[in-house]
C-alpha cells in the first residue's frame, strides 16, 4: 500500500539516568529543576518513530511526529532526534511532565492530528509508545484513537507486517512472555509500540539538515497547549525512602554463598 500517513505521538522525558525529585509547583506537582534536566525522546516513542520511518520507507509514506512539550526543550532534543530518520514535526507547546492529565493530553494531541494538512484517515496509522517514562498510563493513545474514530487498536506491539493490499499482521505482547497475533484489514489503525525490532538508527547529518528546515518553523509556530488539570488533585507526591540495611558478604567461600542462597530460595 503506497502513501501511508504515519502519525507518531511522542514527547520528551528526563534522561533516565537523572535523579528526579518532586516539588510543589503553582499548578500542582512538578520536578525539581525540571527545565534544567537533560531530556531525551521518550524511549517508547522513539521505538515507534523508528518503526514508522522504516515502514514509511517501504511504502513511500510520510511520517509526522506530533509532540506536546515545552518547545525550548523540544528544540534541544530534536537537534539529536532529527538526525535519525526523516519526519515532519507538529509542535504543541505545553507541559510534558508525568503529572499532566492523560485525557487533556489526548485532547490536545487528537486536535493537532486532525489539523495536519492533507490528512487522509483511510491511509492513517497512528503510532506511539504503549507506555512512557513519565506518566506511564498507557492511556493517551487509546483516547486519541477514540477521538479520531479509530477502533482497531493494538498495544505492546513488537512487530507489524504490511501486505501489498494494505492489510497487516501485528504481534502484541501479552502476559508470560507470549505474543498475541492479529490480522487487521488495514488503515486506519492505532499501534502502541513496545520496543519493536529495530535498533536506534545512527545519526545522519543530511537527514538532520533536511528535518531541521521544517522543525525550526514548526517550533516557531507551536500551538500553545497549556493543560489545566482541572478536577485532578494531588494529595501527595513523594520519592519512597526504601533504604535497606545491606549485609555485605565478602571473602566467603563460594560453597558457603551457594548454600546460603539455596536455603533462601527454598524457604
Amino acid at each position, binding site marked *: 500500500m503506497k502513501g501511508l500517513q504515519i502519525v507518531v505521538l511522542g514527547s520528551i522525558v528526563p534522561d533516565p539516568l537523572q535523579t528526579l525529585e518532586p516539588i510543589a509547583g503553582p499548578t500542582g506537582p512538578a520536578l525539581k529543576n525540571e527545565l534544567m534536566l537533560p531530556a531525551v525522546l521518550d524511549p517508547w516513542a522513539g521505538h515507534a518513530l523508528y518503526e514508522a520511518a522504516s515502514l514509511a520507507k517501504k511504502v513511500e509514506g510520510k511520517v509526522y511526529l506530533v509532540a506536546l512539550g515545552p518547545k525550548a526543550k523540544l528544540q534541544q532534543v530534536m537537534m539529536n532526534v532529527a538526525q535519525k530518520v526523516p519526519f515532519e514535526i507538529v509542535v504543541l507547546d505545553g507541559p510534558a511532565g508525568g503529572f499532566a492529565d492523560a485525557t487533556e493530553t489526548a485532547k490536545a494531541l487528537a486536535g493537532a492530528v486532525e489539523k495536519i494538512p492533507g490528512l487522509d484517515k483511510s491511509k492513517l496509522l497512528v503510532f506511539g509508545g504503549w507506555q512512557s517514562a513519565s506518566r506511564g498510563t498507557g492511556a493517551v493513545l*487509546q483516547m486519541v484513537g477514540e477521538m479520531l474514530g479509530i477502533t482497531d487498536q493494538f498495544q505492546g506491539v513488537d512487530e507489524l507486517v504490511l501486505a501489498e493490499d494494505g492489510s497487516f499482521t501485528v504481534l502484541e505482547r501479552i502476559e508470560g512472555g507470549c505474543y498475541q*497475533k492479529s490480522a487487521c484489514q488495514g488503515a486506519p489503525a492505532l499501534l502502541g509500540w513496545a520496543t519493536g525490532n529495530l535498533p536506534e538508527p545512527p545519526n545522519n547529518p543530511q537527514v538532520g539538515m533536511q528535518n531541521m528546515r521544517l522543525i525550526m518553523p514548526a517550533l516557531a509556530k507551536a500551538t500553545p497547549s497549556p493543560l489545566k488539570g482541572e478536577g485532578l488533585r494531588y494529595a501527595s507526591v513523594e520519592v519512597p525512602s526504601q533504604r535497606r540495611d545491606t549485609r555485605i*558478604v565478602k571473602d566467603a567461600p563460594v560453597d558457603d554463598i*551457594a*548454600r546460603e542462597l539455596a536455603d533462601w530460595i527454598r524457604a
Partner: protein
Amino acid sequence: MKVLFLAHSEADGSLGKAACEALTAAKGLGGELMVGLYGAEVQKAADQIAGCGAAKFYGVAGGEFATARYGSDASACEAMAKAAGADMIVMPSTSRASRVAAGVAQRLGAAVDTRLTGLEAADGKIVATRWFYRQRMLGKIERDARPWLVTVDSGCFAACEAAGSAAVEMLNVAPATRTTVTGVIAPAADAQTIRPDAKLLLVAGAGWGKTQPDGQKHLDDASSLILSLLAATQCSLGSSKSLVDQSGEGAALPFLTHMHQVGQTGSTPRHQKGLATCCHGEEPHVVGWRFIGERRAINLDAGCGWAQGKADVLYVADAFAVAKKLAELLK
C-alpha cells in the same frame, strides 16, 4: 455511589487472579457493587465471585469476545458500563483490560487513571495511589469527575474468594472491528523463561557478557549456567537493558529479548524474591526492583551503588562460580 467491577474471563471461563484482586479493590470502595464480565463464557467466572456482595451481574459473552481484541472488548465494556451507570469503574491491569480501559473511559466521558497500586475511600473521598516516572515517585490523587475508571495493578490487593451461584443479565453487543485474532505465540514449556507467578526473579546483568579474568568472554558458560538455574528453580528471568541489547547484536545470551528487560525501559515485575547477578548501575535498576520483596545480589563490587542500601544481602563473589554451585545444590 455505584461501583462497577469490570473484568474479562480467562480462556477456561474462570476469573483470573488479577481480576479477583481488582474485585477486592472495588469492594473496598463501599457503595453499591455491580459486576460486569465479558469473554467467551462468563457464568463460571460469575459463580466464582457470586458471594462478593454484588447487587447485579452483567455479562457479554460469545465467540466474538473470546479473544483480546480492542473493538469487541471496548464495545462489551462500554455496554455494561452504560447499563450499570456506575460512578466508579474498577478493572484489573491485565494486558487485555489495559488495552481497552482508556478507550472505554473516553466513550463514557469518564476520567481515567491506570495501574493503581492503592485505592481507598475515606471521608467521602476516593484516593488513588499510583507511581510516576517509571516507579520512581509515588503519588496520591483525587478527582472530582464521575464516572471515574481505574485499573488496578496485580499484587496490591488480596484476591476475592466468594464462590456461589450468580444470576447474570446478558447484554447483546455487536462489535465493530476489522481485526481478527489469529493466535498466540508462546515459547515451548521448556523454553519458558518469563514466569509472572514465580516466587523468584533472577536478573542477569551485563557482567555475564563481559571479559572474565582469563581474558576471554564465556557466553556459552553464562547461557548454560543461567538456564540451569532457571530449570532448577522455575524462576522468572529478567535482564538489564545493556545485556539485552548485547544479545540483540548476537554478542551475548541468545534467549534474551526485550521482554526480559526490567527497569527504567522495561518491566517492573512483582515477585516475592529477587536475585540479581552481575548487575550494576543505580536508579534504572532500582526501578526494576521496586516491587521485589526480598532482594539479594551477587557481583564483584562491594561498593556497587545499586546493591548498597537496595539489596538485603550483597555477595561479593564471582557469579559464574556461585551460579554453578547453586544450580548443583538446587537440582
